[in-house]
Each structure stands twice: as C-alpha cells, then as structure tokens.
C-alpha cells in the first residue's frame, strides 16, 4: 500500500464531513421552507409553497429587509469615508502613539456587541434620538469601522511608496496622488471591505436590539423576535431567500475581486 494513502483518505473524509457539517443547517432550512407542515419533523411529510405564501402576507419582513439594506449602505459609506483616511494615516504616518491608536480603532471587534448596544440605547435616549434609522446607522458604523480599517490598512501596507513619490515629484498635488495613485491600487481591498461591512451590518442583532422598537426593526431583529414567539417554517422561507441573496452577493464579489486571495485579509492575524 502507498504510505500516504491512509492519511490521504483521512483528510479527504475530514474535508467531506466538515463541508457537510457546514452546509447541513443551511440545507435543512431550504428543505423545510418547502415543508407542508408547521412542526419540525424529519423528513417533512409533504412539500408545499405555503410558507412562501405566508411570508408574502407579512409585509413587515419586506420593509425590515429594505430598512436593513439602507442602514447597511449608509453605515458602510460612513465607515469608508472615515476609515480609509484613518488607514492611510496608520500605514503612512509616523508619530508617537500610532500603535495604541490602531489598537483603539480596531478594538470594537472584540467589544461584546450587547454591551455597546446598551450604551447606545442609553446615550441616544438621553440625546432624544430615538426610533428611526439614524441610531442604527451610527451604531453599525462603529461595528463595521474596524473591519474597513484593518482590510484597507492591510492592502496599503503592500503598496510601493515610490509610485506615490514619483507622482509627487512630477508635480501631482496630494489629492491627485490619493485619488489617482493610491486608491486605484487598493480597489479590490476597498470592494472586499465594503462587502464585509455590508454583511456585518446586515447581521447585527445584539448591537441593535435595544435601538429598535417595532416601527424601525431591522430584518435580523424582526426574525429574532418572530422566532422567540413562533418556530414555523415562515422563517425558513425567508432564510432560504436570504441564503440565495448571500450566494449571489458572494459569487458576484468573487467575480469582481477576482479570486479569494483578498478573503485572507478579512481578519487580522
């Protein structure tokens, strides 16, 4: 027997089992969205589209989806507008306190979201900014900001400063250097960070649960509250649509960013 074959089989089995484990809950959600009964029994006794029909009867989910989408876009925009300049300073700047500043700007990643959520709830209540999407946009901006900064900074580190210096020597003002030399080179990093920010914002529960009050529920909150009360496959139908949406987004992103290499930069090492 070939000496490496045993380990080969072992690793391939691990890979198959792992992929199965990862896909199982997503697959079962899609299957149950077509179930004919409300209770969770395997296999479902029959197939139907009634839960999709039931979903259409609940316009709150549709409104929450659009609201979540709007909040995600606004928070991502705000995080990019403030985070990209910050990343530029963190990579190209030399000043005392740069490392502590970076640690501070990235710290919301490990901050328990529920703690931040209560903090925002109290702050916005005192300021009288309650309801609507503004508190949620502010909250999500802080949550996604460290992802934008770390990905953009990781991309900036790889750039050759000589290109920027050459442009400056040739008389380009700093503004032109940033827009024409720096940003085009980190285009894929910007796209990846924006997509990750959109996804992270779209998935906020803990940070937002105290900021929503029914009229301004985001989609995950709407689903979470529905699930606390009922467990019928309406949520499965909605989830199946969301999985499809995420799939289209991921495939689109991979096509745009050309390859999964940039996925590596998503998390700080």
């Amino acid at each position, binding site marked *: 027997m070939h000496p490496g074959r045993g380990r080969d089989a072992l690793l391939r089995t691990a890979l198959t089992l792992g992929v199965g484990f990862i896909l199982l809950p997503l697959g079962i959600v899609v299957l149950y969205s077509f179930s004919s009964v409300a209770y969770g029994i395997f296999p479902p006794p029959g197939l139907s589209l009634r839960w999709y029909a039931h979903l259409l009867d609940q316009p709150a989910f549709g409104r929450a989806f659009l609201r979540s989408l709007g909040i995600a876009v606004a928070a991502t925009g705000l995080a990019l507008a403030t985070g990209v300049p910050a990343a530029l300073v963190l990579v190209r700047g030399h000043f005392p306190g740069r490392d502590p500043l970076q640690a501070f700007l990235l710290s919301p990643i490990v901050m328990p*979201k529920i703690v931040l959520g209560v903090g925002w709830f109290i702050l916005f209540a005192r300021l009288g900014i309650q309801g609507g999407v503004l508190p949620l946009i502010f909250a999500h901006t802080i949550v996604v900001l460290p992802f934008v900064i770390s990905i953009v900074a990781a991309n900036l580190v790889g750039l050759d400063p000589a290109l920027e210096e050459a442009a400056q020597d040739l008389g380009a003002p700093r503004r032109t250097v940033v827009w024409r030399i720096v940003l085009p080179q980190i285009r894929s990093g910007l796209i990846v960070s924006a997509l990750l920010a959109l996804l992270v914002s779209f998935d906020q529960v803990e940070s937002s649960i105290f900021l929503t009050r029914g009229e301004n529920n985001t*989609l995950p909150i709407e689903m979470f509250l529905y699930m606390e009360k009922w467990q019928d496959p309406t949520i499965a139908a909605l989830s199946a649509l969301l999985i499809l949406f995420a799939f289209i987004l991921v495939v689109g992103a991979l096509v745009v960013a050309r390859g999964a290499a940039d996925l590596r930069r998503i998390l700080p090492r």
Partner: protein
Amino acid sequence: MRVRGWLAAGLLGPVLALTAALYVVPLGVYLVNGFHRFKDGRILRVWTLDTYAAFLTDPFSYKIVSTSLLLAGIVTALALLMGYPLAYALHTRVRSARARGVLAVVLFCPLMTSVVVRTYGWLILLANQGLVNTTLLRLRLIDEPVRLLFNMQGVVISLTHIMLPFAILPIYSVLGRLDPSLKEAARDLGAGPWAAFWRVTLPLTLPGVASGGVICFTLALSAFVTPQLLGGGRVQVLPLTVYNSTVEINWPEGAVTSLALLALSILAVWAVNRVLRRLPTVA
C-alpha cells in the same frame, strides 16, 4: 507619500470624532451606572460600590461566569479541533484552483448568512423528531430521542458551527505562507509524515491556531442569539444577564456584568498575545 502634522490630524479628525462620540461616550455613560444603586425599580444616582459588592458576593454570578467560560472554552476547542484538519486538508489535498475556490466559498458561506438563520437551522436539525435524532434512531445508536435543544448541548453544537469559519480562516492563511521546503527538509532528514507534521508544520502554524482561538473565544463569550434561542433559559451566560438586566432597567447590575464580560474578553486577548510572542513564526 508622507502623512504627518496637520495632514495626519485632518485625516484622523473624522474617525476620532466619530469613535469618541459613538464609542467612548456610550460605553462611559453606560458603565458608570455600575457605581450607582438600583432600588425599587429605580436607579439611584448615588456613588457606591454596592452593586460591585453584590455581584462579587453572589454565588450566582460565579455560576454565570463559569458557564460562560465553559461554553466559550468548549466551543473554541471544538472549532479548532474541527477547523485545523479542514484547513489542512483544504491546503494540502485540494489541488485545482477551481475546486479550492468552490470550497472556500462553501467554508465561508455561513459567514454570509445571518446568525439567526443558522440558529434556526440547528433548531430544526436538533429537534426530537429532527434529522439528527431520526438518523441516530434509525442507526439504532439510541433507543429514544436525545434531548439536544434548550440545553447546553444544542448551544455548543450550534455555536461551534457559527465559529468554525473564524477558526479555519487564520489557520488556512498561515498554512498558505508556510515554506513547503521546511517540511521537505524534515522528510529528507528522515522524519516520517507524522513526525514532520508534529515537529514542523504544527508548531509553525500555532500562531494561526492562537489567533483563530482568540477570535472564537471572544465571539463565543459574547454570543447572545444562540444561547437565547437554543438555551431554553438553561444556559445562563453573561450576555443574557446583561440583556435581562437592561430589560428590567437594572442598569447598575447590567453595567457590572458588562464590565465582567469586557474584562474576560480583554484578558483572553492579552493572554493569547503573550503566548503569540513566544511562538515560532513563519519567516
């Protein structure tokens, strides 16, 4: 391009204003409540350490802290034990770039679906008549359905699934930067495949294991959705206490519990960073 002086200040201005107003201030405004007192459904704005004293002397708080640490610890260990072979197999056994791309999408697609959706998936899978119990019954491994929902087991299984991508990602990325000639050198010098793995590959990928572990641990420690929906009230962890205290308008208790949660997260990050500095690195 050099960035310094007024330019640096101008570029940092917006982000500093934003984080000061929306990160530092809300945390401060909230956590300061830990030094107030909660009595008869109201917060008394007196300065006191009573709430801390109550937290530290209540055996129930130690139970919550130990449940939280246990849950985060088990989930992290499971995610790393499953994630390492997966990352390794993905790195060494999948040759074609296309297959690797497809698998990468598969491994990371849970990240793209909401935590609520994934938790719902496990709710269906782990039910008494769900897929897991039905399969175990058919295989005659069990005689009656195992209770996997609304207890610790269900939360552990579901959270491990949620954390798995965070374990795989850093390990996979370190494996990618590993110089293959190191392992070949070990083999040429007479090490068997297992020895080469244990003595060369594994130690050099420990930084990835450590960073994956710390991400899993801190995220599992502050997880709220899964323990709330699958714990059935039997898995009392710190984030749930924070949530319940806030709902009861008991901000002082919530603030003290939050600080405990925060301290444990920071401690975990600090400890792992210390360990990371002593580990061998991939040159």
